């Protein structure tokens, strides 16, 4: 490609750092003058300038608009990241979350002035309890991993309350990394349970590892291979017979929401990623929310705060002394991810019970459609179908081509599609985990399958270099991650920043 004088390429504009722009004598805000009063800082006034650049509003708007144009988002392209549920983010949710009666509420207003907000939290809690069939819920966890922490700490508290000092948490080999990391914070050692040839938990191996020393078994269901754990009732029975608790990682709840109650699967606790199943925007990395449903045996230990309703209306229970339970304590400041929960409730109300059931059907249908089309085109499924909401391939179909899963993913970027999740789960060689979600049209699914199959055809017909050199058309080509880790440059400084070669 020919170079331009500016480095810009049409709509793809090079944008310097904020700190390389601006200068004194302008501002992006107009503030009233501060009245002269005797300051009362006790001598603790900041000395010297901070070094922030001064910019006007048009400069700031252009900076961030240009940066935005260097991102893929669901709004522009299919984003089939397995285990991430990148579905359409309805704009109604954004609109209602910004109503002043929700957005402009202080967490410590008197309860009499926030009855609608407490009603909303209670209403969302009721929906989630009805959908899962679970009797209790903790609404304050901030994300999936935080919900896991809430669930596992609740389990630990329940076991401690029974005077049972158990040492181990079991997770499948294919578990999300957050599962073992969470177990470690709760003081548990982690042992893994292998999968069977069908990509499910090896029940015999699980039973062999279960003992009076096991506190919990953590399982994602549908699992990280995109398969429903068809022996889940036997798993739950074995876990419970050992006196352990059964934790479900709800990252893949989108496949089953509105179709079955997790309570009926024997699950004792599960977090729900509102930023996955319930469509709240992922925002380039958050915020999310991870409300955690709990079985009756765990409910007394759920963290603070909780909401109750009496004759005076809704009230927040913020202290153990006001609770008839034995709450864990507080796991998050204030009352949880309120504005994320507003969005999720708007989504649940919009789809309703019938729409959620249709959404999970369409999510599973779409994944199976891609499984069929891509298998037909030569990709090698890791396990026999049908799958649930995501389909998993290994990299056997690339044998002898000189092309890797990573190359294929990078070549998809040039084709205007976000890649699938790669190299996860770890149990499948060169894994490609594809989760289209229910919000892609058939035309979009076909376009994605066509693009991927065209790339596979190239790989197999001696044009490997087109993939190994990809991407070429994105705002940046492959980035040197080794250099980033070996010589970490984690902030701009006036003296050390270079602009590349």
């Amino acid at each position, binding site marked *: 490609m020919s170079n331009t004088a500016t*480095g810009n390429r049409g709509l793809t504009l090079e944008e310097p750092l904020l700190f390389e722009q601006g200068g004194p004598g302008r501002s992006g805000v107009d*503030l009233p003058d*501060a009245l002269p*009063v*005797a300051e*009362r*800082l006790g001598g*603790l006034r900041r000395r010297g300038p*901070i070094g*922030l*650049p001064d910019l006007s*509003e048009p400069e700031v708007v252009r900076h961030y*608009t240009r940066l935005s144009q*260097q*991102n893929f*988002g669901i709004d522009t392209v299919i984003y089939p990241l397995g285990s991430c549920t990148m579905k*359409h983010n309805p704009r109604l949710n954004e*609109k209602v*979350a910004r109503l*002043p*009666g*929700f957005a402009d509420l*202080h967490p*410590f*207003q*008197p309860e*009499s002035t926030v009855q609608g907000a407490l009603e909303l939290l209670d209403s969302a809690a009721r929906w989630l309890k009805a*959908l899962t069939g679970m009797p209790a819920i903790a609404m304050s966890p*901030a*994300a999936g*991993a935080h919900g896991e922490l809430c669930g596992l700490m609740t389990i630990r508290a329940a076991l401690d309350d029974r005077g049972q000092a158990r040492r181990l948490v079991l997770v499948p080999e294919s578990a999300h*990394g*957050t599962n*073992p*990391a969470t177990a470690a914070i709760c003081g548990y050692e982690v042992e893994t349970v292998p999968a069977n040839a069908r990509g499910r938990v090896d029940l015999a191996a699980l039973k062999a590892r279960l003992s009076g020393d096991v506190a919990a078994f953590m399982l994602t269901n549908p699992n990280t291979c995109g398969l429903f*754990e068809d022996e889940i009732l036997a798993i739950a029975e074995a876990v419970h017979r050992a006196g352990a608790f059964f934790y479900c990682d709800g990252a893949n709840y989108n496949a089953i929401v509105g179709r079955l109650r997790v309570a*009926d*699967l024997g699950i004792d606790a599960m977090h729900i990623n509102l930023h996955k199943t319930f469509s709240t925007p992922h*925002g380039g990395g*958050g*915020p999310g929310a991870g409300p955690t449903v709990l079985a009756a045996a765990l409910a007394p230990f759920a963290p603070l705060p909780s909401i109750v309703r009496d004759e005076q209306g809704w009230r927040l229970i913020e202290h153990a002394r006001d609770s008839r339970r034995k709450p864990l*304590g507080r796991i*998050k*400041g*204030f009352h*949880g991810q309120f504005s994320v929960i507003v969005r999720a409730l708007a989504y649940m109300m*919009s789809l309703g019970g019938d729409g959620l059931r249709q959404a999970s*059907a369409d999510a*599973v*249908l*779409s994944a*199976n*459609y891609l499984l069929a089309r891509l298998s037909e085109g030569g990709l090698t499924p890791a396990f026999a179908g*049908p799958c649930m909401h995501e389909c998993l391939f290994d990299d056997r179909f690339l044998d002898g081509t000189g092309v890797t899963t990573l190359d294929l993913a990078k070549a998809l970027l040039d084709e205007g599609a*976000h890649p699938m999740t790669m190299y996860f789960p770890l149990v499948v060689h060169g894994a490609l985990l594809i989760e289209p979600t229910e919000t892609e049209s*058939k035309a979009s699914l076909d376009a994605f399958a066509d693009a991927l199959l065209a790339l596979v055809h190239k790989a197999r017909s001696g044009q490997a270099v087109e993939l190994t050199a990809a991407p070429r058309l994105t705002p940046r*080509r492959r980035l040197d991650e080794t250099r980033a*880790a070996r010589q970490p440059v*984690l*902030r701009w400084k006036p003296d050390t920043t270079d602009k590349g070669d």
Partner: protein
Amino acid sequence: MRYLPLSDADRRAMLQTIGVADVEDLFGDVPAAARPVDGFGLPDHASEMEVERRLARMAARNLSAGNAPCFLGAGAYRHHVPAAVDALIQRGEFLTSYTPYQPEVSQGTLQALFEFQTQVAMITAMEVANASMYDAATACAEAAAMACRLTRRRRVLLSGQLHPHYRSVTATQLQFTQAQVEAQPPDPHSGEDLIRRVDGETACVVVQNPGFFGQLIDYSDLGEACRAAGALLVVAVAEPVSLGLVMPPGAMGADIVVGEGQPIGNSLNFGGPGLGLFATRQKYVRQMPGRLCGQTADADGRRGFVLTLATREQHIRREKATSNICTNSGLCTLAFSIHMALLGESGFAHLAALNHVQAVTAADALARIPGVRVLPSAFFNEFAVKLPRPAAIVVEALARRGILAGVPASRFYPDHRELSPILLVACTETNSPEDVEALVGGLREVLR
């Protein structure tokens, strides 16, 4: 159903390609015993108009802070957020993108994170900052855990000036680890002596500046004492706007700074989501929790950004990770960063000065009411006052008059009777002189 693009004809064609007759056949692995026969008892789908109407009705049952003179703080602060902030974070490329694991198509998010990390490091006067935690309370717990790892010690000392939610989240989150958390009693009169309590077993001392009751404290001597004892000084900042005017933690010898970023760029949202700020020294970076964005170059040698040092994180390191955090507060960091960009050096200092002036003015006016005493001798934009009555009752009475007067300390410490007359009053640039008059007038009436 407006969010579902597949038509029945599409569904039939897709089923045919798959080779099954009915979509229910794809759910054959679900045990029959787990399929509800009686439905879920939930309402059916609803139109956009209907959902909006029902939620707006709930919103209308709240008193939004903008409709009342509002002096609430205690860790959540109401500032004016410039219109450009919300417009920019709603661009779909920011709003609807995932964590930037594919850097070639995520340079927008990544560059914004790199700029955010730089801004946070600059205002706290620390060397490095991460790409965010959930909120200040959870960041505080992570800082204490990090200090235990770095020092290989167990004793975590929490100041009585530390926000009670930060204290309680830290205690909850560390209760099953090796750490021993010792919380000092709440300290409204700023009399605690932490230096005397630092010893050779201490992993860290966690303080807050400005303190929960408003007092500004120079922690330089405590920092020295920590260094001498091999402990770390962790400083929490609940109101980051203070850093435009007040000496930053880095200048007091802080080893780790945690903070709440909500007050810059983000609405109150009834307390969530928050934005956890986390900064430290370069030499500790490999023990830091959370994501980090770093600078590198692409295959053509052009500057670019990636998530880096992931070997600290759960998806690589699993049970040996520095934290279990994955999703953080991405879009809130963007809002913070855009607001900071609009403020710039001059605007940030000006905003902080305005807040301080408002608070001094209000404190002087309140101090003239008989029986009311302002407790901190030095403060930024929030201060505790001692009232001649239980503060919770006064707050309720003023709420009935449409005034959000402040936060009673008893809301956090119901068992500490000595705190019952204490009210936290916060002022920001959003408070008008009429607001202060309403507060002072209302308080005079209620206390009469």
